């Protein structure tokens, strides 16, 4: 077994016992019955975080990168070059970010030169990794070179760099191995400075630097663990730790069980107040709920709305959270009749029980989503309104479509199977059932079809043949409405990445193409706003709700801030007596 040994000394009381002492001890134990052993000494300083799962991997180019739990690990071990600036606003115990401005994390200065389409990045000096190595330009070069090597199972670093038009980070790397080597698109200007060239003006570049990917590796430490067959140390990062310049170091990582972080001993500036974080896997939300309730942990998330509601009123606990970028929508595939009929799409949108979903499905910890991009993102307005009139309007729309009271729709019975992720049955099951009930009331023959996440991902991302689905897991990781259009709504021929409903509108593609190529920020915003209006009018997705990202925590823990990856940065937190 490969368990990373703890560097801390063994707890007091450790001593070898003789066989006789063992016998006596066992006998005493059996006779006296079980009793609660005393906890270790560091209970006060450590934070126990109950999680659905611990990181499966820490490699943002590796197989577990898409898992939220892995991202939580990555962002606490590795710092990015830039972060979004903190907003003075605090909503329900959580500080928000100002997505229109950036602050340096590992970068001290960053300047765009429009003449040569390049970014000069000057690094902070005196930043050290957990191995004691100082951050230099070589680390940034190594990070981009590794991303361009597309050597990992899921090349997320390359993908984000290509989305931001970093020069020569294009699809040719997949066809030609020679193109996978880093050239002068990123050059070293000095020990602490680099320059990054873009192939086109693209404002997404600073945004992608804030994400969980493209965080800077400690190149010395990475090279130390490279092998001939694995020159980019994927195995080391998959199995041991992700060596970066973040606030925490990996103390112990037992996959599927626990993940323990300790403060980076070499970090002087911005050193974390909480010195030790224990991620404990408790897969059942009901168990996380009772453990929090009994005061045996400091922090938990991914509880059901009802469980959060129940914890909110308890002594020593608080529930905090805000509407960030977690959304719920109905997916209606344009290639699956009758969803190619706009009247049917409108009828469905009229019949959906929005209020029930918000008040019962999310226990009022959500609001109706009136856009196709999270409304917290800059430049996104509420431009979607379902047809007024509810069920009556739905019936009229069905009649106009030639299906009075749903007669004739039984022909499409297969396509009215409402799919959702079976693993999310507790959260999505009741909502899917409420939608089914209302749609059946107007004659739409909906049946429920929970399927495993893997199958759901395959049919939405790869096959794109899922006719009708309820989804709460799609969110653009880059905080930009243009990125969201490219990701979900642009046609593949227009550069669309994951158009899972097979939506196609020439005008949207043209607007996105204009937004991509313009160097004028206000013109870009205008193109994007018009594209979003069209997408909403076409009901490319049927937006249902924006729900809160929530945490249940001890009342003494403060400093929570919301980031678009929905992961806590433990270095933000501190304890304060309530």
């Amino acid at each position, binding site marked *: *077994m*490969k*368990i990373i040994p*703890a560097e*801390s000394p063994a707890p007091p009381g*450790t*001593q070898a*016992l003789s066989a006789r002492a063992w016998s006596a*001890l066992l006998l005493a134990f059996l006779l006296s019955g*079980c009793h*609660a*052993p005393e906890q*270790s000494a*560091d209970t006060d300083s450590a934070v*126990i975080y109950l999680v659905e799962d611990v990181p499966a*991997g820490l*490699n943002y180019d590796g*197989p577990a*990168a*898409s898992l939220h739990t892995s991202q939580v690990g990555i962002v606490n071990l590795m710092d990015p070059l830039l972060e979004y600036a903190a907003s003075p606003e605090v909503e329900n115990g959580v500080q928000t970010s100002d997505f229109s401005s950036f602050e340096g994390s590992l970068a001290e200065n960053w300047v765009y030169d429009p003449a040569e389409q390049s970014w000069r990045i000057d690094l902070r000096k005196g930043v050290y990794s957990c191995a004691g190595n100082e951050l230099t330009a070589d680390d940034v070069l190594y990070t981009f070179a590794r991303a361009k090597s597309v050597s990992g*199972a*899921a*090349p*997320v670093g*390359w*993908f984000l760099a290509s989305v931001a038009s970093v020069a020569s980070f294009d*699809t040719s790397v997949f066809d030609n191995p020679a193109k996978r080597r880093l050239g002068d698109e990123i050059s070293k200007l000095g020990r602490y400075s680099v320059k990054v060239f873009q192939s086109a003006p693209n404002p997404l570049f600073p945004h992608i630097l804030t994400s969980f990917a493209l965080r800077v590796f400690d190149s010395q430490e990475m090279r130390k663990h490279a092998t001939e*067959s694995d020159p980019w140390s*994927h195995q080391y990062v998959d*199995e041991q730790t992700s060596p970066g310049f973040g606030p925490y170091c990996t103390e112990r990582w*037992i*996959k*599927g069980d*626990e993940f323990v972080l300790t403060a980076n001993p070499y970090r002087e500036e911005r050193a974390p107040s909480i010195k030790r974080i224990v991620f*404990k*896997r*408790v*897969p*059942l939300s009901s*168990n996380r709920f*009772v453990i929090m309730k*009994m005061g*045996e*942990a400091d922090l938990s998330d991914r509880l059901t709305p009802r469980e959060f509601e129940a914890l909110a009123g308890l002594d020593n606990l608080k529930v905090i959270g805000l509407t960030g970028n977690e959304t719920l929508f109905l997916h209606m595939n344009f290639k699956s009749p009758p969803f190619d009929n706009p009247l049917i799409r409108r009828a469905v949108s009229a019949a959906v029980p929005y209020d029930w979903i918000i008040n019962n499905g999310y226990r009022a910890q959500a609001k109706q989503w009136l856009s196709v991009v999270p409304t917290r993102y800059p430049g996104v307005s509420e431009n979607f309104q379902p047809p007024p009139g509810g069920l009556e309007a739905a019936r009229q729309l069905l009649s106009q479509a030639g299906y009075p009271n749903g007669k004739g729709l039984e022909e499409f019975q297969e396509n009215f199977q409402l799919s959702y992720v079976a*693993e999310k049955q507790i959260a999505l099951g009741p909502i899917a059932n409420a939608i089914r009930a209302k749609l059946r009331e107007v004659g739409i023959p909906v049946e429920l079809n929970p399927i*495993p*996440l*893997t*199958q759901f*991902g*395959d049919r*939405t*991302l*790869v*096959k794109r043949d899922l006719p009708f689905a309820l989804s709460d*897991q799609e969110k653009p990781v880059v905080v930009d409405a243009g990125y969201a259009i490219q990701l979900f709504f642009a046609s*593949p021929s227009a550069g669309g*990445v*994951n158009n*899972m409903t097979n939506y196609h509108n020439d005008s949207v593609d043209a607007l996105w193409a204009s937004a991509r190529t313009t160097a004028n920020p206000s013109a870009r915003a205008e193109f994007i706003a018009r594209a979003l209006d069209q997408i909403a009018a076409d009901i490319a997705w049927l937006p249902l709700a924006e729900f809160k990202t929530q945490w249940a925590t001890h009342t003494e823990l403060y400093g929570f801030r919301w980031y678009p990856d929905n992961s806590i940065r433990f270095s933000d937190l501190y304890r304060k007596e309530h």
Partner: protein
Amino acid sequence: MTKFVLKRLGVGLIQIVSLMVLVFFLIRLLPADPVARFVGLNASAEAYAQAEIALGLDKPVLEQFKIYLLGDEQTDGLIHGSLGNSWISGSPVLYHIGLTLPATLELILLSFLISVSLAIPIGVAGATSPNGAVNKGTLIYGLFAGSQPEFSWGTIFIFLFFVVLGVAPGPLGRISPLTEPPDPVSGMIVVDSLIAGRADLLLESLWYLSLPVLTLSFVLTGPIIKMVRENVSQSMSLGFIQYGEAVGLSKKMLASDSLLAAVAPTLTLIGILFSFMLGGAVLIESMFSINGLGQFSLQSVLAMDYPAIQGVVIVISSLTLLVYLLLDVAQALLDPRLRA
């Protein structure tokens, strides 16, 4: 006896190989492509294709099978003792099995130890005194314990002993999250605490395992008692027991002889239950946050993690066959007629 064991081993080997081949091809027929889950929904078609290559799924199935068995330039195959790497974590499947199997074994061994220790005397007492209080109590308990599945009892026990009475630990696994586990030798925390000479860890792990073991024992003890009682009752009507009774042997001696005659079917039941629990303890593991083999199997199946699924099947089937082999040997030792 050697011939008997070798014959059983040969049959077992054929069974494992057949199962491995079957599973390899069957999981690839399932209507889901695992790549999408690994690259996530923010991925491009090129990233998807790259992931497909990285996982080896771009190759024909027969070639994938050949690589799985024999390996290639980059990876070892099954014949080298490698089960491949998990697609979820990137770690070797053997690492995950080494981590999770001891946790499951620890849970079920402790549970069986308690169950068998309780079931045999209670079953014998029930059989020797059919109208006694023990027998009646056993009947009621059997009905009660068998009336609900183990996860239901687990929930009730957590609520009762942890939430209401506060006399048991929370469902936080095999040890407190704040405690550093002992250096892994066997992977079973109870055993490793003993090896490390850590009384504090031993007590703590027994404390944390108390509720899951209680739950599993509570469910397992019922059928074992029933099996012991039925078989002892039947053996008490055998001629040699009745002869012993007629010549005035003590009740204790009669019970002991009846138990010996009843051991074989009871052992069979215990073996079957044990094998079932290797993969079937998943609900208890989930309920008490124990990182066991059942949990790993479940995650692997949901994620379509082919190497992990194949690895788990090979390990569980090998262990099951080993248990059955041991049972066969024990039966053969008890009854020489079976060695033929």
